[in-house]
């Protein structure tokens, strides 16, 4: 069957247009020389971007978000890699149950996770809210994704490669360093990137767990209420969209490398 320009193809084009259309209005209006996001366009300007660097609270929120996201990304991957090894390579009693529990954050609404963490931190442990509490919340939502990416990578290669390494004389650590880690590397990198993106974009949990120092999405949310700050918000939003999109593309390209085509669709 050769590709046909039929109704289905047009449907796919319309689908992509619907998917991207609303989001792309943000960068469009961010370059519009007007304080309102309205048609007709008034002319090209970069002035909405120029003011951003001088916005101290925005820059601080950006710094906070980057700090948290880097920490979460490293922690989620560091925890998920040994766990993925255990779940794919070792005999674990109640493996299905354990895996199900680790994947639970995927089905619990983030608002419930947010308030649950809030309850235990404030009412039971009496901890002050800070970037640490935000990071803990992000870790919970990022870990299942890191685990899923790494498990699918580890399941994707022949377990006899590791047996062969042992048979040829390597000990447990030697096999990990010379065979398992190099082969899992694309998975490790995409786990790092994915966890970073999840943390960097996460809003609801941060909204509940943030202390005096905002993350960027929380800052952004507070700006959305003020119509007069719309152009600056649009500029910031456009940059976030652009940055996240780049990271996602990078993650996906790395993750798909070496995966057989029929598995490329899943997590």
């Amino acid at each position: 069957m050769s590709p046909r320009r039929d109704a289905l193809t047009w449907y796919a084009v319309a689908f992509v247009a619907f998917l991207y259309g609303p989001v792309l209005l943000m960068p469009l209006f961010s370059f519009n020389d007007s304080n309102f996001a309205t048609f007709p366009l008034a002319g090209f300007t970069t002035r909405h971007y120029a003011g951003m660097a001088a916005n101290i609270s925005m820059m601080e929120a950006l710094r906070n978000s980057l700090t948290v996201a880097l920490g979460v990304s490293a922690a989620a991957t560091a925890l998920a890699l040994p766990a993925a090894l255990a779940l794919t390579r070792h005999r674990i009693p109640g493996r299905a149950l354990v895996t199900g529990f680790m994947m639970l954050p995927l089905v619990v609404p983030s608002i419930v996770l947010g308030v649950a963490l809030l309850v235990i931190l404030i009412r039971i442990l009496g901890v002050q809210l800070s970037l640490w509490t935000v990071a803990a919340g992000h870790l919970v939502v990022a870990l299942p994704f890191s685990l899923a990416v790494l498990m699918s990578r580890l399941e994707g290669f022949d377990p006899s490669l590791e047996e062969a390494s042992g048979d040829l004389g390597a000990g447990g650590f030697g096999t990990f360093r010379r065979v398992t880690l190099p082969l899992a590397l694309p998975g490790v990198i995409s786990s790092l990137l994915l966890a970073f993106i999840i943390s960097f974009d996460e809003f609801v949990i941060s909204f509940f767990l943030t202390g005096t120092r905002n993350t960027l999405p929380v800052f952004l949310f507070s700006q959305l209420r003020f119509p007069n700050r719309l152009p600056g918000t649009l500029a910031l939003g456009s940059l976030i969209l652009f940055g996240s999109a780049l990271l996602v593309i990078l993650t996906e390209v790395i993750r798909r490398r070496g995966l057989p085509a029929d598995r490329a669709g899943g997590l």
Partner: protein
Amino acid sequence: MRRTAGPALLAPAFLVMAAALAAPLGALVLLSFWTQTGFEIDRTFTLANYWRIVEPGPPTWWNGIPFPFAYPVPAILLVKSLAMSLTATAAVILVAWPMAYFLAFRVRRGKAAWIILLTVPFWTSYLLRVFSWKIVLGYNGAVNSGLIALGVIGEPLDFLLYNPVAVMITLTHSWIAFAVLPIYVSLEKIDRSLLEAAADLGDSRWARLRRITLPLSMPGTVAATLLVFIPTVGDYVTPTLVGGTQGTMIGSLVQQLFTRQDNAPMGAAVSIVMMLVIAALVLVFLRAIGWRRMRARAGA
């Protein structure tokens, strides 16, 4: 391999999840059995919060449905959220299915590029994607200003934003790309010779779609349905940004109970009731469609 190695490798992640997921959810359950008295929390065990959610009272009418509760807000919002979420989920599946079909059966080269194209929006700021609908549908938004500029309307239409329909459109938009993937995977798994065999036995294109493709895609379609339905019921961002007062959902109530209304135990009880209702609906749904048999049949 040593018998202890597996558990030892798993332990750190497991303990973190136990501390940061199981313990907080446990605490939430515990809190739901306590009560708020003024600024204090009364730690005596009681079912009062749950009773309050179902306590009978004079009926409150919502969309022609009577809610005979003394405190009808949680019940109404829960029903409303489920209805909105189900509508959005149905829309998502209807919109995503043909796209997944296109991806599985029509795209030959550059499949990975298509998948990335669909994946990117899902991973980029949910907040911003929802906010973009405010720009589209707002009183001073793109649609209104565009139509005015074209001379179609004279005054901005004020019914576009801040209502349940806006929430459902936005939810649909947020989740369609995500739903494509599981459906695509189950379509991709279908042995192409099955379709050739069906054609050989006399099935037309539509008959093949109905008798082969659709049934065998069910595992992915059902998975997509759940992946969309479960998180959207408790969504907070979308109703807050585009729902206005008419479009609130149960997530907004939970947030308010924990903050402005300062009744965390009630908020905990509402969260738990919401999760139990979702879980019960999911189980009933899976039982009704014969999920186990379906998965076994499709070799998933």
